[in-house]
């Protein structure tokens, strides 16, 4: 029996030791893996998904961004003002009828495999999009209007369009190497995401590794025509949870993060070695008012409350929404007051109502408007429309967004004070989308991200953007359909003089505002943070106050300036020391604990026997 006991004890000790070793191994692994930390690496937390790297089919926002890092464009929005600036195209001219565009392509730019970048590559890219439906998946909108594309020589690209197109100087289409892509017949082939294909590029960074759902790794393109980036390596690390990403920033696992909530942003403020960046954003938040919406064939669609067809009622509602309170209380101050649908970040096109046009927050005035319009208050304080219908409206929004939850409460409170009862219906994103695209709402919290070119934001309110009877087939924001607005829209689209075009863009926004079909609540700030001990600066867009990651361009990661290398090295050493200390503690605890247990067990068994 004794011998048996001893053997059991030994067995146990071996088991404990084995378990301890297992626990240590993974730690030891990273300790060695972290050794070659010499190159300057910029690690960016990616909180949205990547579908493809193939720039023809890469549609999700993060994938588009990857395309911006590795490929050069004909022109890109400048860092300082987010306006068209030369990239692959040194300069460009238009014919008098504005239908023919001639781009002069820069000489001396090379693909990463050494081949020269020529006008033929650009022509190939656009021609492929014209010929191949799959090639239009991501950016088809830009070529929908193209008549022909040609490259008469290596430095000249000629594009003819069917109608005048104002977005021609900002075609957001990555130019790909013809010698790599021409042999590829099927652009849906998964191989088009491989390094052998997307690894050949001419942008500031070159792809070196792609681990699906986990990370994308790049190295600096030392031959980049603007000059090599100051960091050696760029990593985009997928985080599914922003809270975990914030923690990773604090612990130095990532260097830059964006899409922070005001709460997270505030918590990061003042943390050691972390700098925060609050920049004007590209997104507007709004409340849409169902003014009796119609589908693209002018047939009524949805179940909106017909009382909202009355412009006076809509204006009274708009006047009862205090956008300042929304910015201060809901956004925690991290937003700008709403005006037109183009945010102030695009200052050339942004429009704010003049004091005369503005609907100042004034509940008394709103009440008076409704009194005058014949909406009498009932016994319960809820107004009744002249036809006898009670003013009861549904307010729908995203159930999972704090902004919607709080905004809905504020709005319901204000409208209650002007005699309108509001039923809050916050639902899933998909359900909300179903409701709004089918016109099944009275008031809906919505919002869109805009582009440097105002065309997209304006197009969302044109007659043609309205969907079919099923609520599908096109993307409208407000269902707005107004001849005057569409007139301004067409004029801005076909006017290539920047100043007069901006004039039309503003007139269109003023017209939209006057009809009170939506209330622009605010423009979100882009809230970002980075490790100031590792990076001393980034090139923002626009300047001086712009965003690092939320850009239409590569400026942020291209212009990243690493801080002195000593701090980085010291930091790595520090974390290793901690690692080893903890390791030691773990080993001791395991051994001592195991020993005590073996001893106790042996005794207990003896006693019982």
């Amino acid at each position: 029996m004794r011998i048996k006991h001893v053997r059991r004890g030994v067995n146990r000790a071996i088991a404990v030791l084995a378990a301890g070793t297992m626990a240590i191994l993974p730690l030891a692994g990273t300790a060695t893996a972290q050794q070659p930390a010499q190159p300057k690496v910029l690690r960016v937390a990616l909180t949205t998904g990547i579908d493809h790297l193939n720039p023809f089919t890469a549609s999700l926002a993060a994938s588009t961004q990857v395309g911006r890092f590795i490929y050069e464009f004909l022109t890109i929005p400048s860092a300082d003002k987010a306006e068209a600036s030369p990239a692959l195209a040194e300069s460009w001219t238009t014919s008098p009828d504005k239908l023919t565009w001639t781009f002069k392509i820069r000489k001396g730019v090379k693909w990463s495999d050494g081949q020269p970048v020529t006008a033929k590559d650009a022509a190939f890219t656009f021609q492929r999009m014209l010929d191949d439906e799959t090639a239009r998946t991501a950016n088809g909108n830009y070529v929908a209007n193209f008549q022909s594309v040609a490259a008469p020589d290596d430095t000249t690209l000629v594009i003819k369009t069917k109608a005048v197109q104002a977005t021609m100087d900002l075609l957001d289409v990555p130019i790909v190497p013809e010698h790599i892509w021409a042999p590829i017949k099927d652009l849906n082939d998964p191989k088009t995401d491989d390094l052998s294909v997307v690894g050949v590029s001419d942008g500031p960074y070159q792809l070196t590794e792609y681990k699906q759902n986990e990370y994308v790794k790049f190295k600096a393109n030392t031959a980049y025509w603007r000059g090599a980036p100051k960091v050696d390596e760029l990593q985009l690390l997928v985080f599914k949870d922003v809270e975990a990403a914030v923690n990773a920033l604090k612990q130095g696992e990532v260097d830059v993060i964006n899409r922070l909530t005001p709460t997270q942003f505030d918590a990061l403020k003042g943390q050691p070695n972390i700098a925060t960046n609050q920049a004007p954003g590209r997104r507007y938040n709004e409340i849409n008012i169902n003014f009796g919406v119609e589908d693209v064939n002018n047939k009524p669609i949805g179940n909106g409350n017909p009382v909202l067809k009355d412009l006076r009622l809509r204006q009274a509602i708009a006047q009862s929404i205090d956008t300042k309170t929304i910015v201060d209380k809901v956004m925690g101050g991290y937003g700008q007051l709403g005006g037109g649908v183009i945010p102030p970040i695009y200052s050339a096109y942004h429009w704010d109502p003049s004091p005369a046009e503005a609907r100042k927050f004034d509940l008394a005035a709103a009440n008076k408007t409704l009194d005058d319009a014949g909406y009498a208050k009932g016994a319960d304080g809820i107004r009744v429309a002249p036809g006898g219908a009670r003013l009861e409206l549904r307010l729908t929004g995203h159930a999972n967004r704090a902004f919607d939850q709080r905004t809905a409460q504020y709005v319901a409170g204000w409208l209650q004070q002007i005699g309108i009862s509001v039923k809050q219906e916050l639902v899933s994103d998909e359900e909300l989308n179903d409701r709004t695209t089918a016109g099944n709402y009275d008031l809906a919290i919505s919002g869109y991200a805009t582009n440097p070119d105002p065309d997209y934001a304006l197009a969302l309110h044109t007659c043609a953007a309205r969907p079919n009877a099923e609520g599908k087939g096109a993307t409208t924001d407000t269902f707005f359909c107004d001849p005057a607005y569409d007139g301004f829209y067409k004029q801005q689209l076909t006017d290539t003089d920047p100043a007069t075009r901006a004039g039309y863009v503003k007139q269109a926004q003023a017209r939209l505002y006057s009809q009170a079909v939506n209330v622009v609540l605010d423009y979100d700030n882009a809230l970002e943070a980075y490790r100031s001990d590792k990076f001393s600066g980034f090139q923002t867009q626009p300047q001086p106050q712009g965003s690092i990651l939320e850009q239409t361009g590569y400026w942020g990661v291209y212009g990243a300036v690493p801080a002195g290398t000593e701090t980085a090295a010291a930091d790595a050493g520090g974390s290793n020391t901690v690692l080893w200390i903890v390791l030691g503690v773990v080993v001791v605890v395991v051994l001592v604990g195991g020993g005590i247990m073996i001893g106790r067990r042996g005794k207990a068994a003896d006693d019982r026997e």
Partner: protein
Amino acid sequence: MTQALTSDQAAVLVDPDENRGGTGTTRFVLTKIAEALASILLVIVLGFLLFRLLPGDPVAFMVRERPTDPAQIAELRDRLGIDKPLLTQFWDYFTGLFRGDFGTSYIERRPVLDMIGERLWPTVLLVGSATVLAVALGLWLGIRAAWKRDSFFDRAQTGIALTLWSVPQFWLGLLLLVVTGGLFPSRGMHSPDAGPGFFAQGLDVLHHLVLPCVTLLAVFYAQYMLVMRSSLLGEMNADYLTTARAKGLRDDLVRRRHAVPNALLPTVTLVFMQFGMVVSGAVTVEAVFSWPGLGQLTYDALHGPDLPVLQGVFVVLASAVVLMNLLAELLYRVLDPRVRTA
């Protein structure tokens, strides 16, 4: 969805027909296999119909916040085939399954089988290792807790287990992230800085595995412990234990050779049920640690919704549960003679 399936399968477990024929094991096995196949068929039909009740328009999701003209949208709808009649869609889907074609994701436009394939291994690794550890820890603690019923050990362990069991997984995960202070990576399964080579890569994966695995383990083990504890308690006063003790056997041996084997059956059922669920992953833990597994795939696919992915995942998960239950039933007959002869 998995919950409903479990009860469905539980019903199969206590099939009253089981013992009527009595012509032997072969017939029993064949019947069980046929039943499993029928269940999977039902799952395929159900999965197809179920997800079509979800709100949302995949195409609207795809073109969200990107300039897109109506012609482009029409092209997309046509390519995805979402405007085809439901019956045609089902037939395409159903016949595709037999060719091993689970369809193409709406959002990512990649074959669903590829997407599931690349997510399966991370999930099996994470949830599998957590389950194995949880079973080992749970059984060990459960046996000891029952043996020393109402002792300090019993009360403390039961309390700890119940507390961990009721803690929200994402909270526990985030807490571990903060407390461990950067000792373990906070995201994913691989570090972009890990060296090449099998050994370095393997260590890197293990290093990434620690936190999510510990989180799951902490939440998982309570059920095994409590089931083991209560079923062992049921055996504690049995006469055969008295007999065994009277023979002069050591307490340890009485427990190990006599009590535990008899108390093991309910736990075996539970373990197999859980192994069926392994592939369904752990949505929240995968999200907190950005673990590239099936749970995340399912969660992401709900946006859109990405119907082919949801259908595919549903079929794979349900099949795993059905398969594991089938195994459990067959194993039951091996483990416990009473089931065979009853």
